[in-house]
């Protein structure tokens, strides 16, 4: 890996993605971020691309840009995600499609295109985002949990398919963190969820960054196909 890593993070306009972009910029990475809407993150080493993560032509154009401007990609963090908190009997099929598209198709597309760049130099680190809700079979989030269970399967299978190229694929499963994603969830639901953790508190951005740091380290080359849940779930 070169001295200044190139790190691509999806969903950097706000929330965990925004925090991770700032975190890796502070560590000296060149960061490429994306979201559906423009972001106000202004930093000489940061570049923002406006695209939907499941729009194939848009994603391919993003990677063509990374290839031209940086010539390589060291790290990919598939953070972009949407949730749907609703009883399955009250969930429109359009919501299911949208959640699957962003969370699963988006992660697939970015991983595929990133691996094409990474395989040339036989080095790459890919981190996907899942959720403790998968391990807890959390009721009220069927579409979201199903999409993230699929992301976990993708993580394990692609870890095997890409191992020969020196690329690792792992996933981090945060507990609820104060972001837009959970703001709409009733307080007692969050309290119930936190009570099922070994360590009973909300997550912090730093907790997530710490796990992503570990997976991205060059020294973590023997760690792949793993799903790491926070909070002792």
């Amino acid at each position, binding site marked *: 890996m070169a001295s200044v890593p190139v790190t691509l993070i999806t969903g950097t306009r706000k929330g965990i993605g925004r925090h991770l972009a700032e975190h890796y910029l502070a560590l000296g990475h060149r960061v490429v971020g994306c979201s559906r809407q423009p972001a106000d993150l202004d930093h000489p080493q940061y570049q923002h691309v406006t695209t939907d993560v499941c729009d194939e032509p848009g994603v391919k154009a993003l990677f*063509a840009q990374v290839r031209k401007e940086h010539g390589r990609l060291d790290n990919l963090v598939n953070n972009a995600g949407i949730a749907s908190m609703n009883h399955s009997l009250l969930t429109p099929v359009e919501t299911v499609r949208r959640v699957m598209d962003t969370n699963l198709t988006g992660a697939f597309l970015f991983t595929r295109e990133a691996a094409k760049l990474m395989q040339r130099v036989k080095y790459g680190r890919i981190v996907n985002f899942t959720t403790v809700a998968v391990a807890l079979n959390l009721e009220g989030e069927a579409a979201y949990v199903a999409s993230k269970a699929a992301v976990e399967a993708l993580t394990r299978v692609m870890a095997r398919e890409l191992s020969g190229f020196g690329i690792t694929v792992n996933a981090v499963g945060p507990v609820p963190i104060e972001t837009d994603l959970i703001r709409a969830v009733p307080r007692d639901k969050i309290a119930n969820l936190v009570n099922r953790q070994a360590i009973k508190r909300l997550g912090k951005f730093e907790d997530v960054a710490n796990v992503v740091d570990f997976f991205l380290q060059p020294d973590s080359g023997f760690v792949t196909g793993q799903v790491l849940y926070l909070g002792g779930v």
Partner: protein
Amino acid sequence: MNDELTQLIIAATRELSAEQGIEIKQALGPDTRLFGEGGLLDSMALVSLVIAVEQAVEEKYDTPVALADEKALSQRSSPYRTIGTLASYAAQELSARRQSA
């Protein structure tokens, strides 16, 4: 266009072989076997070559092509057999993409 694509694939094969330490003993041409019996590449190297050719085609012709879709993988006579078959397949995909654009 076939000749241009053949040259492009030969260049990509040479570059890949140099990067991955694959020994090329013969001159490369349309009849060079890429994959399968007597082929230059193992399956991982073939994946890398297909990606490199897709990228080179996109850069040269400013048109993205997919050379690894289900269609290619299910064809009875694989387009990955030789440099020539891959060049024909790339030419076919490229003109299809241009027509639909």
